[in-house]
């Protein structure tokens, strides 16, 4: 247990011994702030003249402002997370310090969880920005404290999953740059896939005249493909959560996602025992 804590403390401190930590925090705060201000302006314009923007009445504050803003905060972390995760293991390998880490009296668990928690610490440092925005928003319209907490928790859940994915990619990369680029690419593809998935037609793509069995098969495969595209991306499960609808399956999705890539990170670190034998 103390090993995890020691590794975590060093890793966390090193974010601020290099500019990485400041850059990540600063950029995140800046862009979140801009997004919040812009959506607030947009919302006030819409509420003055709802028909001009296709609304019949003043749109719901939570649905039209808070939820999209929170989903955006999560997506923004998607694009900044490589900054935080790319170095975790790739840099140790690149600098050779992995040799020290693996010959000190530490278990793989100490290393993986220590580093994961350090990155999660960075994520948590970003959250006060969002909380502040929600707090400000609550001055205009009453917001349930529970809804604010759930909103922040949603972004944290997305972050937990993203950090886990990024750490796994860092564990299998030799250089930070490769790890960072790859993580960014995977996140971007996931995001695009989600958007594409939502635009795909729901009906069976097989032509009417085809035999029934073939149509059912194609229809099933299509459903699966569409389901994967819409359900797998990290932002897909955030929307309801940010509206205050806490469904266990959405929460479990993020936790499972994080656990899965943590598991793979362990295997990647362990692979030194069986590779090249």
């Amino acid at each position: 247990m103390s090993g995890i804590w020691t590794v975590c403390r060093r890793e966390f401190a090193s974010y601020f011994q290099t500019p990485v930590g400041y850059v990540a925090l600063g950029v995140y705060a800046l862009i979140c702030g801009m997004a919040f201000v812009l959506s607030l302006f947009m919302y006030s314009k819409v509420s003055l003249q709802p028909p001009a923007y296709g609304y019949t009445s003043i749109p719901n504050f939570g649905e039209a402002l808070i939820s999209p803003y929170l989903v955006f905060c999560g997506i923004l972390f998607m694009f900044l997370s490589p900054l935080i995760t790319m170095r975790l293991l790739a840099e140790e390998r690149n600098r050779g310090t992995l040799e020290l880490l693996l010959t000190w009296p530490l278990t793989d668990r100490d290393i993986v969880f220590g580093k994961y928690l350090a990155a999660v610490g960075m994520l948590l440092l970003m959250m006060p920005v969002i909380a502040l925005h929600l707090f400000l928003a609550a001055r205009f319209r009453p917001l349930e404290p529970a809804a604010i907490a759930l909103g922040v928790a949603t972004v944290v859940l997305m972050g937990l999953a993203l950090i886990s994915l990024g750490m796994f990619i860092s564990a299998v990369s030799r250089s930070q740059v490769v790890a960072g680029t790859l993580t960014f690419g995977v996140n971007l593809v996931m995001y695009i896939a989600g958007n594409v998935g939502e635009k795909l037609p729901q009906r069976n793509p097989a032509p009417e005249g085809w035999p029934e069995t073939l149509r059912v098969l194609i229809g099933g495969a299509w459903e699966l493909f569409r389901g994967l595209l819409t359900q797998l991306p990290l932002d897909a499960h955030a929307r309801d959560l940010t509206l205050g609808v806490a469904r266990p399956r959405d929460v479990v999705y993020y936790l499972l996602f994080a656990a899965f890539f943590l598991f793979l990170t362990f295997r990647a670190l362990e692979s030194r025992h069986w590779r090249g034998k």
Partner: protein
Amino acid sequence: MIEVVDLTKNYGHLRAVDGVSFTIPAGRITGFLGPNGAGKSTTMRVITGFTPASGGKVQVAGFDVAREPLEVKRRVGYLPEHVPLYEEMTVRGFLGFVAGIKGIARGERRSEVDRVMDRCGLTVMAHRIIGNLSKGYRQRVGLAQALLGNPPVLILDEPTVGLDPRQIAEVRAMIRAFGGEHTVLLSTHILPEVSMVCDGVIIIHRGRVVYDGPVPDAGKGGASLEELFMRAVATDAAGREEETGVRKEEEP
């Protein structure tokens, strides 16, 4: 203290270490010699638990490296070949971190870090950033982290490479002083170093042990260490010259 039995290590099709066996009794300083790519670093990496062996057995202080790696790691201080360090940390910060990892109690960490810094002549550099240190001081930081927690076994991979003559003399004197208290396995390319510092010497070539015995004393009319080394390395190489250069050590 260190017992290596029939150790082999393959990197893919390359056999870097081929049936190496030796025993190093407690408190002895043993020189580990061999041409480049002989398997020295690989053997050391297996003993420290960084690289798993492909075959054979390694025991340190009675603990099997493969089965109880943590027990072995608690008893071994290791200075890797290229001295990897966390460049962005200060000397004291880094050593304090390692002391924490090695499980030294919070109250004793400061005095333990002071002790190894004093022993390695780092006290004046305590607050410098490691990335800004000269090669010689980096080497000392590497040695200092190995010494933290006073482990009974020290594995030092080319500790004097890249140092100036004065620093070499200092580091040698330091290692000499480890004798009796620590069991030391020291790899080097500098033969006189072994004569000066070590009690025994192991020479390996092409992944096999070709000499394991006391350091020869040229003054008594026997062969010098250099003659011994050249002979040990030549006898085996003569018949297999075409292989030269193939058996390079690979980074895992």
